[in-house]
């Protein structure tokens, strides 16, 4: 069978200007930060980012690569407001498509199922709907005649997710407390890149874990990248928790253009090996 393993640097060739990219994880939890750094190094622009947002969104706003963000929230969890995202919003520098969390789920699920929309109650009466002319309602064809939200599909060009382990065929495993909606991102996307803490044999995946932990099967995955600490500084349980000290440093980098340039040079404009080396140097 064919290996889907990609070298971390070869990932950069997967990105092009104007893409719609869905990013897995949730807030500051299990974000594919190594893949986000590759996206930064690629320099591609005019991106639409779809995310249960955390520092992935903040970084791509700070670099100016995100043109539009589709989100239900953007937060660092232990720091409520994502400072780089907030700065971009307050400067009018990024287009915001704000959805309810559940509307975002509906849009991804519809895309994965190749349907034009999903009917839901979520968003009725709210400004996520009233403020978005692209979301319409649908009248139930049955006797109840309810007017529901027809959440349009959110098809993605590319999905980026980070999981605990994968094999080289593209089967990937979530050992943490919550799969979030990573499988929906993968299904909604034309292509999916999975980074994993470790790439192991298929047999090894279930040696000490139930097959129900295998969140993604290989029909949902196009490329696999081995990336230890690939979600750092966000959490990737049970491998590691959030690096709160690092996260504070990241948040501080929004305090001035100089602070951001320093952070960017030290932690973004470099490959994974150099990133881990820089981390080791300060911790």
């Amino acid at each position, binding site marked *: 069978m064919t290996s889907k393993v990609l070298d971390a640097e070869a990932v950069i060739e997967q990105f092009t200007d104007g893409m719609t990219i869905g990013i897995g994880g*949730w807030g500051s939890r299990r974000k594919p930060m190594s893949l986000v750094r590759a996206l930064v190094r690629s320099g591609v622009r005019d991106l639409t980012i779809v995310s249960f*947002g955390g520092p992935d969104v903040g970084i791509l706003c700070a670099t100016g690569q995100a043109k539009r963000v589709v*989100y*239900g*929230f*953007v*937060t660092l969890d232990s720091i*409520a*407001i994502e400072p780089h*995202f*907030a700065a971009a*919003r*307050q*400067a*009018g520098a990024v287009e*915001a498509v*704000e*959805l*309810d*969390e*559940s*509307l975002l*789920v509906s849009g991804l699920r519809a895309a994965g199922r190749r349907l034009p929309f999903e009917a839901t*109650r*979520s*968003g*009725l*009466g*709210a*400004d*996520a*709907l*009233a*403020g978005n002319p692209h979301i319409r309602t649908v009248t139930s064809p049955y006797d*109840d*005649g*309810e*007017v*529901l939200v027809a959440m349009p599909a959110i098809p993605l060009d590319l999905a980026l997710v980070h999981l605990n382990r994968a094999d080289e065929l593209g089967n990937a495993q979530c050992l943490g*407390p*919550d*799969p*979030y*909606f990573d499988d929906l991102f993968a299904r909604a996307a034309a292509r999916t890149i999975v980074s994993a803490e470790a790439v192991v044999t298929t047999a090894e995946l279930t040696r000490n874990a139930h097959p129900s932990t295998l969140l993604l099967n290989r029909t949902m995955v196009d490329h696999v990248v081995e990336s230890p600490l690939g979600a750092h500084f966000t959490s990737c349980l049970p491998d590691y928790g959030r690096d709160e000290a690092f996260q504070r440093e990241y948040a501080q980098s929004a305090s001035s253009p100089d602070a951001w340039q320093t952070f960017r040079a030290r932690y973004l404009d470099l490959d994974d090996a150099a990133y881990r080396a820089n981390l080791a140097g300060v911790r």
Partner: protein
Amino acid sequence: MNAVTRAEVAVTACSDLFRGQADILASPAGVVPTIGVRLALLTHAPDLMISDGESTILGDVPAVDRPSTTPAGYLPYRELFELITTGRRHVVMGGAQIDRFGNQNLSAIGEHARPTRQLLGTRAAATNTVNHATSYWIPRHSRRNFVENVDYVTGIGTDRARAAGTAARFHRLHQVVTNLGVLDFSGPDSSMALVSLHPGVTLEEIQAATGFPLHSAGPVSTTRLPDERELHLIREVLDPRNRREQEVPS
């Protein structure tokens, strides 16, 4: 025993939000509502269900600042969203702004295209309010958060729900608990009305802190004090390190 604090009155009012409720997920946001829900569980509402707010249903009732040691179920976000659509939940949310019909804003202050202050975003407030019982906890009742019109509607109020028609038939705003009093939506056209003032708060004080006229039908009552058992549970069992005082200083 020391005098009952304002925070302890608010905890008790939050507990009372859940009178008569069983086999629903109680989802409090904030320290005071979290203590309140756990107080309800240990007194009048033993069949409420609580979670850690992440992926685990709790099988115990730990102190507000201590982790659970007994998981009783698995509730990742995808399962939480399914539960929400069944209606078996009562959420206590916060809000940067709330208006007289209970429209809530968690998203951003100012013009939405370019806000003066970006906040969290909508989260699941729209989904919550249209599917199950919703209450609010506002720890610092002021004209900044009780406004004539919210800048962006995340959780929907009674007027928006009415306009949305029968599909919004599960909308139910219960009460708003603040550091000054308790309110509900029994006013004209389902607008906000005063239920009770916390001991020591005057009608003039709460009205001055509210950016719209507060309705009240007749004499306003005083929010009840916790009884001795409740006070013991709050002080010794659920919040022995007095986290409630940080949210509502005396």
